[in-house]
């Protein structure tokens, strides 16, 4: 797959050209493309003078990075302790069976990506589901259809 890499110089210009900037650069690439395209990683490695192997190891170590493209809507189920004891796992079951994918996967039509995150710090509202930037608080098992509809 080819990606528009013309934005990379912009991203590179935001940070000092040194190995230390690697994570910040990758974060911005992730934000721009919604994942880390292979070609972009190669360019970042060259630009920052970091071996590609190290770029790969950093890209796979941190949860924030994904080497696979994500769907239009990224659904994140908070799996913090509070969300867990208030039934987040049951909500995960519902979303997984409705979308036909497991957490960490993307639907084949590239519409939805389902993710589990550790804690988003909104524990008083548990369980919490976030679709792109929209928060759903105090989610009940029977509200998953509504969440998928975007209501």
């Amino acid at each position, binding site marked *: 797959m080819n990606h528009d890499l013309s934005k990379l110089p912009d991203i590179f210009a935001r940070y000092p050209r040194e190995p230390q900037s690697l994570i910040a650069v990758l974060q911005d690439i992730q934000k721009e493309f919604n994942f880390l395209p292979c070609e972009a990683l190669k360019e970042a490695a060259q630009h920052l003078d970091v071996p590609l192997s190290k770029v790969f190891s950093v890209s796979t170590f941190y*949860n*924030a990075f994904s080497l696979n493209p994500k769907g239009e809507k990224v659904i994140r189920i908070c799996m913090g*302790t509070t969300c867990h004891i208030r039934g987040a796992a*049951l909500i995960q079951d519902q979303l997984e069976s409705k979308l036909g994918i497991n957490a960490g996967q993307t639907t084949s039509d590239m519409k939805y990506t389902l993710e589990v995150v*550790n804690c988003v710090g909104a524990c*008083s*509202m548990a369980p919490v589901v976030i679709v792109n930037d929209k928060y759903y608080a105090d989610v009940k098992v029977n509200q998953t259809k509504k969440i998928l509809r975007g209501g």
Partner: protein
Amino acid sequence: MAITRIASPKALDKLRTECQKEQQKHPRKLMVCCGPGCLANGAAEIVSEFKAQLKKKRIKGFDVEAMKETGCHGFCEQGPLVVVEPQGTFYTRVKKKDVERIVEETLRNNKIVDNLLYTHPIEKKTYRDYREIPFYKHQKRIALRNLGHINQCDVRDYIATGGYQALAKALTTLSPTEVIEQVKTSGLRGRGGGGFSTGRKWESCARLAERPHYVICNGDEGDPGAFMDRAIMEGDPHSVLEGMAICAYAVDSSEGYIYVREEYPLAVQFLQEAIREAEAYGLLGDNILGTDFSFHIKISRGGGAFVCGESSALMRSVAGEVGEPRAKYIRSVQKGLFDKPTVLNNVESFANIPVIIERGGKWYARIGTEKSTGTKAFSLVGKVVNSGLIEVPMGTTLRQIVFDIGGGIRDNRPFKAVQTGGPSGGCLPESKLDLSVDFDTLTKAGSMMGSGGMIVMDEGTCVVDVAKYFLKFLVEESCGKCTPCREGLYQLYLLAVKISEGLATESDLGKMEQLSAVIIDASLCGLGKSGPNPFLSTIQYFRDEYLAHIRDKRCPAGVCKALITYEVDAQACDGCMACIRACAVNAITGKKGEVHVIDQAKCNKCGACFAVCNRHAIKVA
């Protein structure tokens, strides 16, 4: 407004008077809480509606400038919150449609909108002033002092409350050694959970001849169920910057980093804005307040890895590398960031520093207990009635926190346990409720202070499930560098799964205890060393519950899927068909008005029927 750099401590005094005068222009103020909880519940909509209404209604002496978008006010449970000061009129669960009434009745006619006030769920008493509400009354706020009272990102607001006074005091009247002495006298211990003396840490760094020295603020807050640091970084970022600058002066550093989780985009944004503003005012950057002291702060965004809360892993991550910890015998104070001497403190620790410098170490040491001085912020969450962000003096008992502040357990169910210390902490049962909350007492009881997540559990929470949850978390977050942690925790997790599925024998418990001992002894860093805690503390206090899973193949809390069934209570069922519609696998049959039946062979135990039944006719057995 044109910004002039503050050229001297005197000029700061002048600016403070000017800022205070600005504040007095509006005798009444409207505080809209924009903390994480309230935002998730629609606070942004409330803010824009207030702006629109205030513009339209033209209330005398009350314009848009009298409204503040504040950080977390604390009582997240009741959000979105709107407070009218100085009366303390406290409106809860405010919706967009309520805004016009608040503007007309309270702001124009000085009347209270009764149905938006907080009513205590058990006492049924309604409160007009939030300071009287038990949730607030029993608290003492130092680290959270400005949250809910000032504009999140406004340095002038911060200065009006006496902000950057402590930095000025340190730079002009105290030597670096005297600053360290004050912090040592205060007895402040690391609020990230380590509990190491902050003053002594600074002292060790200051003594090292090698340069440069670095100051890092740990805003990684990886413990699930904790959001104190997020609230401080978003709601009062300048207090963190000021604390860091004072530290930098004390240890002779000119460069600092704040390591913030990617999951907290607002914290990143507000800290960036706060740094920019502080630099423009000459409160950060070169020649701070016209003195020789210079200090620059950069933000480093974390990539979402729990292990990066560990000091050496965090420093490698700041350096753009994989966050793997190293062996503990090399101290990060000596060889920290880029192998240079480094002070690493947590957000809450830094937020306490300005108050300690201003009021003196002795004043701070008088609060709390002898060995754990001061106050501690907690996120009080879970099955508790009043959940939110709190701060109490050290030595407050768990019972006071859960019952006086937290209002007890939801739906009047029996209390079961309170979990503190995040994945490395433990669960304490009812018999431990009268323990004093301080570093040493909690550790002795088999849990730990941790960074301040306090998760309350009721009888519907299964401790085996909780242990399994934390172990899974740790397995996923283990960096994989050392074997005891990588493999040991995984085996421990598999055994916990076996118990939750009713397949374990009692000898498995022995295996788990043995394995735990090895993991604790042989792991490289704190993640592995405390990894077995979720299991050890639950088996210590809830062995019976483990045995119920093993011997009786029963989950008393009704959580472990393999051991429960959902059934319809024929007495309670009115045949409304709600559960039939909710069931995704068509396991429920029955006609309208008739008792429904669940086909156990088809049921996948998703819990949807249980959630939709208004008559509580679905029972878990």
